[in-house]
């Protein structure tokens, strides 16, 4: 994959400007404020903070229980956090549905594998590269989120708004790691 990326960088890598593509439909301040209200509702009605990454760990544990139940049940994380379809999994399923309703109502349905900016940077034939990079990114994110204790929503919104020190440290590190990697991929 590294070789392929190097090869691409010598041949077809084009300069891209993220501001040339469509922006948000609604004001980011309005959307953010409403997410803040939503987090109050989840604290009050469900006694839970908004957070997305746990759902994937639950799914991993449930698949592990199907494929290798004895091994999965011996792992510390799954002993501490028994995998089940709970509030967190339903939240992420709801996010997919809600985003669909929003995209459909706002005529923003994309229905494609390659995001336009990726395609302009890496070419129309980069589908396999995109799948591999997105998959690898998912692995790193899940590992990092579990290690840090949460993701962009669990630490970045729910943790920081409770003024948890670890959440602020983790959220800042999300952006440091992300900025360095993105600069290497798109700005070199």
């Amino acid at each position, binding site marked *: 994959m590294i070789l392929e990326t190097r090869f691409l960088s010598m041949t077809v890598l084009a300069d891209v400007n993220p501001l040339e593509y469509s922006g948000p439909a609604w004001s980011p301040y309005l959307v953010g404020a409403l997410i803040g209200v939503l987090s109050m509702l989840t604290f009050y009605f469900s006694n839970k903070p908004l957070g997305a990454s746990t759902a994937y760990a639950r799914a991993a544990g449930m698949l592990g229980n199907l494929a290798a139940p004895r091994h999965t049940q011996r792992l510390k994380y799954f002993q501490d956090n028994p995998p089940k379809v709970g509030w967190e*999994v339903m939240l992420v399923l709801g996010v997919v549905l809600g985003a669909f309703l929003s995209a459909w109502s706002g005529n923003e349905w994309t229905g494609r594998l390659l995001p336009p900016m990726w395609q302009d940077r890496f070419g129309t034939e980069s589908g396999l590269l995109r799948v591999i990079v*997105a998959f690898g990114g998912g692995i790193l994110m*899940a*590992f*990092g989120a579990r290690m840090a204790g949460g993701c962009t929503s669990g630490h970045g919104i729910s943790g920081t708004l*409770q*003024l948890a020190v670890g959440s602020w440290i*983790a959220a800042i590190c999300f952006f440091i*790691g992300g900025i360095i990697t*993105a600069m290497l991929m798109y700005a070199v």
Partner: protein
Amino acid sequence: MSTTTEKPNDTAATDTASHDTTAPHAKNDHDKQPKPLSAAGRSLALGVLFGIVFGFLLQKGGVAKFHVLIGQLLLEDFTVVKVMLSAVVVGMLGIHTLHRADMVEFHIKPTRLASNVIGGLLFGCGFALSAYCPGTGAAALGQGNFDAIAMMVGMVAGSYIFAEASSWISRNLDPIGDKGKLTLFDLFPQSRTAVTVGSASLLVIVLIVLELTTIR
């Protein structure tokens, strides 16, 4: 490493009494009335409802878009930070108020310096590679970005790989710089309200500076 704190009586236990369907004389009454949702069912229904609202807002805020997320990491498009900080300001003031009124509990995640930093940097690297985070990736799939499926499958795989390493990490990395459930209130113990309002004001100033200095 528990990521959520669960209250034992998460949902009302009052409706358990009406589940006795064995008494024949009660059966007719049960058929007429809508069956009350069980505690677990109510939790799942609320989860999907809050998820729909969350996903709708993420998509409207543009943060399910590949180029908006990468644009943030390239420091060109500040939509992501504007959404996040606005949510934090409103949630910080709102949840502090609800907590003062004894209506909600806090859910503080522990501060473990080594794990927060190393895990955070790994997460950030994966964030830039996939261009979606766990929540916005689900929203990206909902708006038709099929590459988000690869990221979501990767998330499931990465979670299992973490579980394989979880015993080692909890023994060797989590104890480094383990400060427990540390908050800014512990560092500035004078007045919780002052700390909350002060922090929210600082973030509002950051938002104003961003609005004045950024293109998007």
